[in-house]
């Protein structure tokens, strides 16, 4: 039985006076890929931001048995959680090199960092070509790769990804997703993936949660959900 890497209990999240999440319970298994599905506005992004302390929340969030709810984002990140946000959050005015270096800014060992940069290039050769270019001039797909690369530079235990397929051509999306699978296997990196594209996500993930207007309406093994036609048609529309 794999251990729970992250456990969220009774999460309620608020944007100002508006409540967006209503008592979510969620766990992420160590070493696995968990996906959070749902329509636009269901609260998926909010859930990710709650984990990282970017939104006002009540409830418990335990990472490796440590309570992280209420901590500052930067402190949560330093515990080993990398977040690839909605819109990628690239430092557009800085170069690709600087973006990657920033991913590792909290680490000290220069040799290890250099190795990690090479590893990122291994996954994303296109970034090596653009190494000294201003990040804002990269295409959407390349920026997504850069964002994931930057997250990798933290050597995270858990990587959070917010709609990595957004705005990308189907071929690039497949490329990115297969790379995520490789990362999960090779680096033993747990992944928590928020996606609107249910088919892709269920293909990749081990566990799945389905969110609807701030509540979990379904949870279980991704394979089961993928293979159950009734559930798919009722909740996922295909």
């Amino acid at each position, binding site marked *: 039985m794999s251990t729970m890497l992250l456990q969220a209990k009774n999460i309620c999240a608020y944007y100002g*006076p*508006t409540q967006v999440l209503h008592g979510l319970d969620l766990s992420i298994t160590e070493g696995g890929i968990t996906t959070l599905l749902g329509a636009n*506005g*269901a609260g998926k992004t909010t859930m990710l931001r709650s984990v990282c302390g970017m939104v006002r929340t009540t409830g418990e969030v335990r990472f490796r048995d440590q309570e992280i709810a209420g901590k500052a984002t930067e402190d949560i990140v330093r515990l080993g959680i990398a977040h690839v946000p909605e819109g990628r959050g690239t430092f557009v005015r800085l170069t690709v090199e600087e973006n990657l270096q920033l991913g590792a800014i909290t680490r000290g060992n220069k040799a290890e960092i250099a190795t990690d940069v090479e590893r990122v290039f291994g996954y994303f050769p296109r970034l090596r070509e653009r190494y000294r270019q201003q990040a804002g001039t990269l295409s959407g797909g390349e920026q997504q790769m850069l964002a994931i690369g930057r997250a990798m530079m933290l050597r995270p235990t858990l990587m959070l990804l917010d709609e990595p397929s957004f705005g990308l051509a189907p071929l690039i999306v497949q490329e990115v997703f297969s790379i995520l699978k490789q990362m999960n296997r090779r680096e033993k990196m747990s992944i928590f993936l928020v996606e609107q594209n249910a088919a892709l996500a269920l293909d990749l993930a081990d566990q799945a949660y389905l969110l609807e*207007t701030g509540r979990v309406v379904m949870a279980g093994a991704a394979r089961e959900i993928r293979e159950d036609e009734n559930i798919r048609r009722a909740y996922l529309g295909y």
Partner: protein
Amino acid sequence: MNTAVPASKRRAYEAPAYWRWLGFLIVAAIALPLPFLLKNFFIFQLTLAMVYAIAILGLNLLTGFNGQFSLGHSAFFAIGAYTAAILMDQYDVAYYWTLPAAGIVCFVAGFLFGLPALRLEGVYLALATFALALAMPQILKLSPLEHWTGGVQGIVLIKPNAPFHLPLNPDQWLYFFVFAVAALLFFCAYNLVSSRTGRAIKAIRDNPIAARTMGVNLSLYKSLTFGVSALYTGIAGALGGIAVQFVAPDSFTFGLSIALFVGLVVGGVGSIGGALFGAWFVLFVPNIAEQVSKGLAGAVYGVILVFMIYLMPFGLAGLVRMAAMRLARAKR
């Protein structure tokens, strides 16, 4: 999520119309009897407060509703004042005609300044307007223009008498005159802001790229907004010049721009009513500061301003807005 935005969550400055009329009536009820109860000097101070309110409103139209940043509105205030002064002094134009004249001149000036300034964003626009504000006193002192501007010494004006032999002294008459002009201008501003043009202007503030893709002609609207904003401030300048009976280059320094800006922030950006509070703040608080400590007047003013910003980061209007929202939520 498919919940429509409930009325309680709509921003308070789009409050229902009857609130605004009520507010106006309350203000009028307090303001109108005052000239009969106060000494001339205080009437003069209140008149000046209304003048500043109009000027701050002008700045608000630009910054608050269109998101463009100006530290140079003292220049338009000056242009309005000098237009009025020159017309009255050299061409014997009646004081009430100087207002539309000042308005038009400033509209054109603002529009023309807006055209190149458009291309600048944030900090750069602030710097350009900063330069404009500093340049204006210098330009007004230029020797070749002395024939019109009166050079360093400026132009002296005479306060108009009440028309139709009304039993009012010049200070009282001017107070009512300015009040009427202010009311008219505020009314026009409300209409402008809630009109289709107003929505386009706000759209530019909120998301310029999206606005452009939806067919809003960015250049035109931005320049027009600059023009209208300058128009308001120019009319205020004209009124100010008449009230003070004097225009001179050093009355329109960068310090005035700062005062207008502070008035805007304290009153609340994006709020038309806030302009009144802002005007009151920048006119009277420096005096209060001086009373507290002559040597440290500036420091006291600064400290008061700091507290204002902490307590009301969105200005008085922001505070009112939040209170209204809390009230509306409590009702449910």
